[in-house]
């Protein structure tokens, strides 16, 4: 049979495609190695399952269509015509959900209304629509009960407090075994390349918004010259990062950054001294001369 052969050919092509897809996926997983977080793995798995089920569904529909085609081939003209006249599954479902009266009975449903030729039928409310209405009313009542009577779900203020608490807990957890052997007065600049790179990464992600990636200054002052609003040198810079500057956009980063991180950023800022980037802002503040230490 011709059709069957064609079918076989097509499915095998499809199977190859699926296998290839699965293959590349698992390949990607192994190469990425253990660097992938559990969450990402979860997403990948979900994605894979979703993709496979989608493919299975497609294949199933395809096979169904083929089978239908076979059956149709066997049918006589008469049977075919009868089948054509029959409404599709959706039309049937739609008619059932709306509890339609057959079109032939429409005459009986006509009300004696006539407005400029517009007539009205006495159809009852579509049952699914009525159900939808009831469900939304129940939803409304339950919603109000949960939030305002039993108060089992948090309103926005509590929701916010929870969100902040969760973020703080996460941070505390991350810093649990951090060893800090300096404070803002005794801090010294690091020269460790990894630590400086860490400072640079943070600077470019967060500080650059105001100070420009090269430190030349935008909304915030130029950090590459010897003029400082709040004093230069590692200790002063560290203090500004830690405490912020009141009434400016320079917030206190203490709640978000751990001391090591603040030192790394401050140390990176120190390395920008004298880089003279193009388009830098003019000097602002006092000339800072480092004391001999």
């Amino acid at each position, binding site marked *: 049979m011709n059709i069957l052969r064609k079918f076989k050919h097509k499915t095998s092509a499809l199977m190859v495609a699926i296998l290839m897809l699965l293959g590349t996926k698992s390949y990607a997983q192994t190469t990425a190695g253990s660097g992938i977080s559990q969450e990402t793995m979860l997403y990948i798995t979900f994605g894979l399952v979703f993709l496979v089920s989608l493919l299975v569904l497609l294949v199933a529909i395809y096979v169904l269509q083929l089978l239908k085609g076979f059956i149709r081939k066997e049918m006589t003209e008469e049977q075919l015509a009868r089948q054509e006249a029959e409404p599709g599954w959706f039309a049937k479902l739609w008619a059932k959900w709306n509890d339609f009266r057959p079109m032939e009975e429409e005459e009986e449903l006509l009300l004696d*209304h006539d407005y400029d030729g517009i007539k009205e*039928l006495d159809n009852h409310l579509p049952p699914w*629509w009525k159900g939808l209405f009831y469900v939304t009313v129940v*939803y409304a009542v339950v919603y109000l009960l949960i939030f305002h009577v039993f108060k089992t779900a948090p*309103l926005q203020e509590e929701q916010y407090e929870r969100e902040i608490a969760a*973020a703080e807990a996460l941070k505390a957890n991350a810093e649990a075994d951090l060893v800090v052997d300096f404070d803002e007065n005794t801090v010294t600049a690091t020269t460790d390349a990894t630590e400086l790179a860490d400072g640079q990464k943070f600077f470019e992600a*967060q500080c650059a918004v105001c100070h420009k990636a090269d430190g030349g200054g935008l909304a915030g002052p130029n950090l590459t010259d010897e003029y400082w609003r709040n004093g230069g040198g590692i200790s002063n810079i560290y203090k500004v990062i830690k405490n912020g500057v009141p009434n400016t956009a320079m917030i206190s980063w203490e709640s978000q950054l751990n001391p090591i991180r603040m030192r790394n950023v401050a140390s990176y800022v120190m390395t920008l001294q004298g880089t003279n980037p193009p388009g830098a802002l003019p000097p602002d503040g006092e000339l800072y001369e480092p004391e001999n230490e």
Partner: protein
Amino acid sequence: MELQQFKYDNKIVKYFAIATVVFGVVGMLVGLIIATQLFLPQLNFGIQYTTFGRLRPLHTNAVIFAFVGNAMFAGVYYSMQRLLKARMFSDMLSWIHFWGWQLIIVAAAITLPLGMTTSKEYAELEWPIDIAITLIWVVFGINMIGTILKRRERHMYVAIWFYIATFVTVAVLHVVNSFEIPVTLFKSYSWYAGVQDALVQWWYGHNAVAFFLTTPFLGLMYYYLPKAANRPVYSYKLSIIHFWSLIFIYIWAGPHHLLYTSLPDWAQSLGTVFSIMLIAPSWGGMLNGLLTLRGAWDRVREDPVLKFMVVAVTAYGMSTLEGPLLSIKSVNAIAHFTDWIIAHVHVGGLGWNGFLTFGMLYWLIPKMWGTKLFSTKMANTHFWLGTLGIIVYALPMYTAGVVQSLMWKNFNAEGFLEYPNFLETVTQIIPMYMMRAIGGLLYFSGVIIMVVNLMKTAKQGKFMAEEAAEAPALEKKKVVGGHWHSALERKPVIFTVLTLVAILIGGVIEMVPTFLIKSNIPTIASVQPYTPLELHGRDIYIREGCNNCHSQMVRPFRSETVRYKGEYSKAGEFVYDHPFLWGSKRTGPDLHRVGGLYNNVWHFNHMLDPTSTSPGSIMPPYPWLYRQQIDPGLTAGKIKALRTVGVPYEEGYEEVANNDLKEQAMAIKNDLKENNIDIPETAEIVALIAYLQRLGTDIKAEPTANK
């Protein structure tokens, strides 16, 4: 029974129809211009009257009140006469209504670009125009009720119910929301402040959508769809149930525009649940429309009129499902302030209002000119351009909304905002802004094709200004019995009163406690009225329409308090804000905590050339703020007006206010001078800087240094 001869007035319909088309083209063109300005900011040509902030209200007002408004009147004047078998109550009132409405539109088109605005969305027009709107609306109402009273048809058809609801509710909404105290001929302050002003405004704003864009158009659908399809309306029962439930529930849903703001929680929750309960009543309208086409679907494929109507009704169904979903708090947390909302309103506006209007015009014009449509092919082209336009408009906007919102909220693994620079989230979606403009262009070109088609149609026919009709007079007899609602349909006055009651309940229950119960807006001792200079600055902020792109409402999310560097906004901070300026869209960042964040020089440079301080910014420059001077002569009037509405300026302060104004202005001027910037202390930019530096600072613990 004696047959009475009378004539339908088609001329008034023709005039409203022409106005619909003209203002449709204008309103959409303005929309296209401002859509383009979002990726091409220099498209205002450096002129202050054509910036996004001033044109955006022009676009919304033109499309809502001029395009949809005139379409509504054209459709109502045509259908009402026929449904009631009577000529309009008074030709004179019809013409006062027509010319009055057009004058209001022209007044809007002049005052809005001039920056005369109240800042309240879809109610931007200043107080003299507000009064004119009230008068003309009453004229429309008298004409309508008068026609109903002298009708020759015993019962009122469902379309008439919707027209009545429209008249009654829009009157109530407009009057209540427009309470304002005049300062000058074209400047006023809202009677309400802060949270209360926001509640009233969005009760109005939401129900302007409900009773200006929805109920009248449902009425039109109930006339033009069965007429065009030549089919009986599917279910009389459904009409009754969905009419009453729709108007009763709609009015409650306003607070869903204020989720996660400083509005009391209980009011927010009412907004959410009533929005959810609104799904079925809205869908009742869609179903009754679509099911009316049962047995006529083969004609839908051929008749452009029906095609437009089917898409219109479907778009109505889609946006009335989307609306309630957007009112669920967790969805709203993502969608609010983003382009998702812009997409949502345009599915409703372009799809429902636009397409129903087009369908109606394609049916109406050949009818009134006694001819056939000039070209079905052109109408089909219009249909496809329009449909494609809506899709190309909406999809990029949905994407833009979700992408930008997720970028705003994204914290990296280390607990920092992944995109701390707001601008980064803007440049990301600029390609989507371009796509959207293309969608708008497609839709607009479809409309142009329609204009040509309709003009050619009119040309080949002959207009019937007076259409003869006859019907027996309504006998003065008592009709009893029948369905209870059928009895109500014979009693237009009782019907109107019941409608009024239904739409008042929700508004009263939400507003009265918010105004009367103190705990709803906890006061904050350190919050003080604005200084005279800040008042001038605030009025410039309103004039320039800054609130069209910048919100002043930091929501209680970690991503917002971190991004905007301060506490989330509290109800008590806005008690002197007449009007409130929370905004509804963040094309630029929130400004509620901007006070003190940047120095005066930064603001000075930023307003002169936004890209100098924020490379890539799509905000236009505001050079005129540096040339124009504030008028200290207005200070006393502003202070007095605000005192009248409850701001505690001491008695007699208006006499000395300008001393304070000068002192504060000099401080800013001198600070700028230290940075080699020379500007007169009366320049508008100085006042604006003063206002921006004040924003959101009252509750900060440290005393402000910049004052």
